[in-house]
């Protein structure tokens, strides 16, 4: 087993080194920024005062400003890098597993030796996947701690940084690995596979965003209090109409709420007739329920692409 690990790591040393270095840098950066944020030492009552919009004590203002500056100037870029990192390193690790073997002709040697190509693939994947998991796992944990530090202390809604920390980062990296492996096996060329893989991942990423929006809008909503909107810690999903009975109607149903005879501005008519335009959101508890769904979604995609990759490997002719 040690021999397999050593040899597979040696075979993919450039890609794996890059995966480890990039993930390590991102993870360490997240850890460093976390310590800087924690070092500011914003007391919980300062954050609470700010969130409740009741003004902040003089002692809080410089602390909140310092915290905000570090958050926006340092934590922002670090967390933003987590949007790209799992896709980039996943593809980087996944594409060469089969793609480069086919490209360089070594698949003929390997597949001429190993009676079971699936077993060969499993061994390759075990090593590459393990290194990827550890490296990206480190970055996902430190980014999660960074996000937790930020969320404890103040400011923006907890879901502003959705997908930029924690398990989702790791799950996305797994999916990118699987997509890279599959596309590499299909094309048999590294660079085209990387480009195609990036396009596939971009489509899947957009798809996950749409799925999240669709899911959120199907959840029970609450009306966000207009005066203390900043204190709302759930996820804003859009606007709606609140009638006098307390029933919430989607904003897009506005035209059907007004009589057909109304001409001109329907919104104006609704507001003049007892409807209140309100901001709708889902509670933080509800919104958090999406995280395991998205993680599971990426993992299911990973398994599907790995399965498809295994089928391609077992049926493909080595070039």
């Amino acid at each position, binding site marked *: 087993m040690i021999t397999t690990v050593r040899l597979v790591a040696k075979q993919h040393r450039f890609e794996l080194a890059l995966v480890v270095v990039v993930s390590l840098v991102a993870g360490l950066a997240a850890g460093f920024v976390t310590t800087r944020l924690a070092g500011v030492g914003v007391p919980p009552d300062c954050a609470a005062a700010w969130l409740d919009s009741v003004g902040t004590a003089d002692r809080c203002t410089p602390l909140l400003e310092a915290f905000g500056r570090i958050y926006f100037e340092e934590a922002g870029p670090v967390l933003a890098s987590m949007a790209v990192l799992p896709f980039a390193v996943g593809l980087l690790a996944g594409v060469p597993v089969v793609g480069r073997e086919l490209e360089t002709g070594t*698949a003929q040697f390997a597949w001429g030796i*190993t*009676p079971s190509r699936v077993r*060969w693939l499993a061994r390759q994947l075990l090593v590459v996947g393990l290194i990827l998991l550890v490296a990206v796992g480190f970055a996902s944990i430190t980014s999660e701690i960074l996000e937790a530090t930020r969320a404890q202390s103040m400011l923006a809604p907890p879901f502003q940084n959705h997908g930029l920390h924690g398990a989702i980062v790791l799950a996305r990296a797994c999916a990118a690995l699987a997509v890279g492996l599959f596309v590499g096996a299909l094309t048999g060329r590294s660079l085209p596979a990387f480009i195609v893989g990036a396009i596939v991942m971009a489509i899947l990423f957009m798809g996950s965003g749409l799925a999240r929006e669709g899911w959120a809008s199907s959840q029970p909503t609450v009306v966000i209090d207009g005066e203390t909107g900043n204190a709302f810690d759930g996820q804003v999903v859009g606007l709606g109409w609140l009638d006098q009975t307390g029933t919430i109607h989607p904003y897009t149903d506005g035209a059907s709420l007004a009589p057909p005879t109304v001409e001109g501005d329907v919104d104006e008519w609704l507001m003049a007739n007892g409807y209140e335009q309100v901001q709708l959101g889902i509670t933080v508890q509800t919104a958090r329920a999406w995280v395991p769904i998205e993680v599971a979604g990426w993992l299911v995609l990973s398994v599907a692409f790995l399965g498809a990759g295994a089928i391609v490997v077992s049926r493909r*002719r080595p070039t």
Partner: protein
Amino acid sequence: MEVALAADKLGRRYRRQGPWAVRDLSFTVPAGSVTALVGPNGAGKSTLIRCWMGFERPDAGTALVGSIDPQRQRDRAIASIGYVAQSNALYRAWAIDDHFRWVAGYRSSFDRGYAIKRVERLGLDLSRKVSELSGGEKAQVALTIALSLRAPILLLDEPTASLDPLARREFLAILVEDVRESGATVILSSHVITDIEQACDSVIVLSHGRLLLHDTIEDARDQHIAMPLASLNMLAPIATFAGPKGEPLALVRAAAEPSQRATLEEIVLGYLATPTARSPIPDAR
């Protein structure tokens, strides 16, 4: 006679409606024989070997390894074969011994002790990376791995293509010595005819994917005469071709006296000069 390899109406083409790489090949290779697979580039030698490896899916007929169809039981077929690919594609970043250890992890029959001994005999350091080896050394390492698998069948796809004449001779000498000991069945694809006489006991001549000749070298030489075209008289030649000095020669199929026997090179050249050998198999369109 135990059959080690067989082709039964085997056909393979790389594009639907495209030309056939091999077509309608039917023959058997007896166990324990060392057979040369000869033909020009594009004759279908690699395709045929790759069909036995299960790397190519036949479009017609079957390729059999013993009684195993590699398309149905590739694991069993591969487990009984030692294969050297045309490109000697080893892992550039790995040392020689890395390859041995890796192979040992997949094939329990791999004799690492033998492989190490053999490589040391060739004067190669086990810790040398493949990227530092010459073409000949890579070929030797690839052959060592194939031989050390102790497989009953060896499929060697132009293993000597990148070797100089001396290295080629050495390579073949080692192959012959080892195969005599092990009794393995060998298919050696090559377009260097001198290689064949040194190492093989049978010959298969392919051109444009068609089988032109399959015989033991002894029988082939006993049954063919090469003579100047002028002295042909009433004999019907298989084909005419240019001799070493450019003189027109004819290859005739007839029982030959020892002094008349054609050389293997003349036989192969004669078959490759036949009209059948020169015309590609038409597209299916």
